[in-house]
Structure formats: C-alpha cells, structure tokens
C-alpha cells in the first residue's frame, strides 16, 4: 500500500481589499489548485478577510537564504543617493 498522503502543500496569498497587494497568510494541503483555493477560502477567509486568493505550490517558491542576508542586500547600503533625503535643497524652494 502506498504511503499515506496529506496532499501537497500550497502557499496561500489573500488580497484583503481592492487595490492592495496579495499578502501571504499561510498554507493548505490540497490535491490540486481548485481544491487549494476552496480550502484556503474555508481556512483563511471565514470572516470576510479577503476578496481574492492566490495559491502557489509550495515547492515552486524559491527564497533567498537568511545566512546570506547581509552580503545579499549589502549592495544597496552604499548608495544613499537613491534616497531623496540625500539631496540638500535650499529652504524656500517649493514642490521638490
């Protein structure tokens, strides 16, 4: 007999209101995308928490690794000129 299956894992993203991004809320186990969406509705939106749901097979997500966090994001640290506060504008100049 095959191994007991709890079904593949799907990560769930819910959009709470129109115009804002979908946000990760957790995951569900389901046999396919359709079932994952239904399960996600029952598990994560029982109290009108969302108007749209995305489900993604968990194994399709690649993530940056926390050990490399420092060096990976470091390149942006020495470029303060990307921030508007880098530039000194005389007082009295408006709309800038």
């Amino acid at each position: 007999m095959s191994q007991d299956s709890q079904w593949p894992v799907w990560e769930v993203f819910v959009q709470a209101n129109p115009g804002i991004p979908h946000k990760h809320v957790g995951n569900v186990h389901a046999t396919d995308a359709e079932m994952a969406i239904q399960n996600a509705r029952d598990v994560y939106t029982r109290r009108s928490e969302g108007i749209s749901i995305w489900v993604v097979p968990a194994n399709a997500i690649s993530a940056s690794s926390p050990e490399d966090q420092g060096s990976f994001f470091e390149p942006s640290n020495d470029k303060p000129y990307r921030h508007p506060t880098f530039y000194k504008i005389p007082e009295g100049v408006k709309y800038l």
Partner: protein
Amino acid sequence: MEDQKQIEAFEAKIASGVKIEPKDWMPEAYRKQLIRMMSQHAHSEIVGMLPEGNWITRAPSLRRKAILLAKVQDEAGHGLYLYSATETLGIDRTELLEQLHTGKAKYSSIFNYPTLTWADIGAIGWLVDGAAIMNQTALARGSYGPYSRAMVRICKEESFHNRQGYEIMMHLAQGTPEQKAMAQDALNRWWWPAIMMLGPSDDQSPNSDQLMRWKVKMESNDAIRQRFIDRTVPQADFIGLSLPDKDLKFDETTGHYTHGPINWDEFFEVIKGNGPCNAKRLKARSDADKKGRWVRDAALAYAEKKKLKAA
C-alpha cells in the same frame, strides 16, 4: 556541538524582539521544544472539536446550532494554522498525526472530560476558551514567527468563542430553576479542569528559564492562571453563579483572588491517559484518520488523472 557564537547571535536577536523565521539558524533544543509545544497545541484544537461536536445535533435552537457549528469549524481552522506553522520546523503532518494517534504527543488535558449537558457547551466556551485566550495572547508575543502569527489570528477568533459560551451560561442562569441548576452543575465540573489546563504550578514546571529567555514561553503558568481567575470570578458573580472553591476570596492588599489547593494528582492522571475520556478521544481521532484514508487516496488519484488528461 553548536557554535557558541551562533547561540549568542540567536539570543541577541530574540532579546531585541526580532522574530525567528523557519530558515533562520536555531538551536536544536529550540526547534524540538517548539515542535512539541506547537503540535500539542494543534492536536488540542482538533481533539477539542470532539466534546463540542457531541452537542451539534442536540443544540437547543437553530441559532445555537449555527453558532456551535461555526465554532467547531473555527477549531478545525486553528488546528490547520498550527499544523502548518509546525511543518515550517521541518516535520511532516503525517508524522505529527502519527505521534498523536500513538500517544507519543499530548493534547490539552481539558478535552478528556465529557460534555454531559448543554450547559457544558456554555462552560467550555466561557472557561476553556477563556483560559486558552489568556495563554494564547501571551504566546502571540513569542519569538517564533509562524507560531506567533498563528496565535494572533487565533486570538481574534477565540473572542467570539468566549462570548458565545458566556451568553449560553447567562441565559441558563436567568432561566428556570432547573436551567440555572444545570449551568451551576456545568460550572462546578469545569472550573477546576479549566484552572488546571493552564499547566503545572511553576515549582513543578521544568526548563522554564531557558524557554523564557528564548521567548518560547512568555509567562509562567501561575501568572497566567492568576489573571484568568481574576477576570473570571467577577463574570460568574455577575450572572449569579458560584465557583466551586470555598477558599476563593479577594485579597485587598494584592488585588488578586486567592484560591484553594489544586488537585494536581488529578491533572497528572489525566495527562497520563487516565482521564474520563482519553481512550474515547484518541479512538475517535484515529478512526477518523483511518476511515478518511480512502478519501485522501481517491482525491489524489483523481487529481493525477485530471493532470494527465490535461497534458
């Protein structure tokens, strides 16, 4: 041997309030303790569906029935959030369930008591969910990201559970003498188990220092228990029910209630498996798992067939 530097960095992170995420480095003892605690919590949610599910078909009105159904469905949802959070620590749900069915993993002692009358549903929502909220609001501040986020969600939902339970008790207490007696009887039977479900007394609870430093535990069992008692006693007074503790009294100097001795022998017996319903609860869970197996297999086979057809 774990690198001392790694442990120091880990502890510094926790001390500064940064959450630990699944892929971050963590000491083995932290991971193990979390798996134990979180799975115990997950199991409690789904085993907790059984005593309440017992009354769904016999709820006294359609309103009560719809509410109870929604509450029991919430508990299933809580179980799912928690299993999913536990899986982020690198353990599979199949394995977690197996630990439950073989008795290797525990669940809350409280669910090994029977629900004899409708008033027990009121007492559970009011007292058991009330005590759980005390514990869970503390855990929501814990250091492990997925657990803490699950707790925040769960706490929001528990507040409905708590209030619907109190409302049931209030209506019964205001009803006929028989109804009031039924409410009082339920309170008499659930009060002590609810007090005990917050865990052994601090002097009997090992490892607490490290767990507190790692923010796995946020408050001692006794501190949480005290808060639960302080908040619940006036609620009982308000609806004219009395608590089954003749030593219970308000201490003006501390601002807290003092209570009589807790029967820890009973608590440890229930934990060991000798409570009134332990065997029944485990059998129900394990039967549900076995009987549901063909459904899981069939659903998976169907999904695979559909995928093949689409290809």
